[in-house]
């Protein structure tokens, strides 16, 4: 994993592609070009891409775009998608209203 860990090893120059304006993360409206460019700016892990661009941070929490983002990042880094660790899944599984989450047995809200 040296190619991900040593951030001085750059993935070459950014070459624009015709479908760079295609939306990949629909919840947060992040395009393929933005994801590719982020890799060239040093974001080599899915976690970093997510924090930098908000991919997978919207309502679906990446359930739609996670695999697509992974494929784009891996290709840009010249590695297999299997080498990239997915972002941590976070509770709750589905968005939950504050008033619902706040309810616990014996608690009045």
């Amino acid at each position, binding site marked *: 994993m040296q190619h991900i860990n*040593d951030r001085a090893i750059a993935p070459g120059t950014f070459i624009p592609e015709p479908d760079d304006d295609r939306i990949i993360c629909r919840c947060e409206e992040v395009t393929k070009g933005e994801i590719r460019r982020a890799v060239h700016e040093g974001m080599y892990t899915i976690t970093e891409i997510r924090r930098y661009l908000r991919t997978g941070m919207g309502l679906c929490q990446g359930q739609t775009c996670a695999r697509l983002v992974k494929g784009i990042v891996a290709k840009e880094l010249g590695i297999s998608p299997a080498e990239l660790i997915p972002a941590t899944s976070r509770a709750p599984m589905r*968005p939950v209203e504050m008033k619902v989450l706040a309810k616990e047995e014996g608690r009045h809200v």
Partner: protein
Amino acid sequence: MCNTAEVIIVGSGVIGCAAAYYLAKQGVSVLVLERDQSIGNGGSSRNGGGVRQSGRDPRELPLAMYAVEHMWPKLSEELEIDVEYHKQGNLRLGKTERHMEILQGLTERAAACGLDVHMIDGAEVRKINPYLSDEVIGASWCATDGHANPLLTTLGYYRKARALGVRFCTEEEVVAIQKIRGKARRIITAKAVYEGETIIVAAGYESRAIASTVGIDIPMRKELIEALVTEAEPKMFAQMLGTADADFYGHQTDHGSFVFGGASGMESVNKDNGNMAVSSITAPCICRGIMKYIPKLADAKIVRTWAGYEDLCIDGVPVISSVEEVPGLILACAFTGHGFGISPVVGKLLSQMALGEETFLDIREFRYDRFQAAI
């Protein structure tokens, strides 16, 4: 590739990345070693984004005031990334007479240090933020406090430092620092050996174990606290909020979502699972706290929760210090949950310390050897 640099920084959090940036800007060669695979994966990416002066220990206040006056307003321009900094005030809310006493004490101590912070009543609070409930009877108000995006600030410093030639190596866990001819110089990781003229340790709680390899101990502990984020909501208010009771703190982000942090009260005895997993009791507790202050948010949906460690110093302020017994070693740790807001100024101070320059602010209060036994 070469394993030497003038300055080696252990830890790629916002403090380490900021120090790397300010050093690289002056042409210094810098190497940053990070234990995790991702940059800034500790408190730097898990905090609530507060850029506060009010509520701080008087020893720490000059750093926060300098950062707010001279650094935060220009940071987006400097890093060429929108760090979403907003200087639109901090309300620390009170619901009981006891809360108001706590706020009064904090306010008086900060005002004595020259900070423009004062007490306001419930009506004035609701003039500033009409969404706050009638349970709020008053607050402390500091108009120059604010908030920023900690993820983009950390990665912004990283991106800029990397572009200036700083070498970042992740998944490099530091095992030991070794002295050569009486001076800290060599860093041993699980995979390699590195050498630098100066070593800055900015690795959160893990700094304790690393510093102990050269005989230095910092009296701190770690505590796992939690935060949550809602879906995007229409714009409601721009201030940073906190409470005298510390039930929650937070703000609305540029994205529209609300980020709130808080605690269940069980933190000091949490079962430490080592992987920063959230507890099932904390987020509901934070929600109950928030709804009492901001009833309108009861319908807001929680999208995500997460946890992160605070490195809590025994006396509540960080260690930012050179070490006399170990020349060449600089410590920057034990930020006690207040590190993000002062990260630009600490990064700049560390760059001066590493270059052997006189620091532009007095940092004697943050010495590593200030701790003494009770009797």
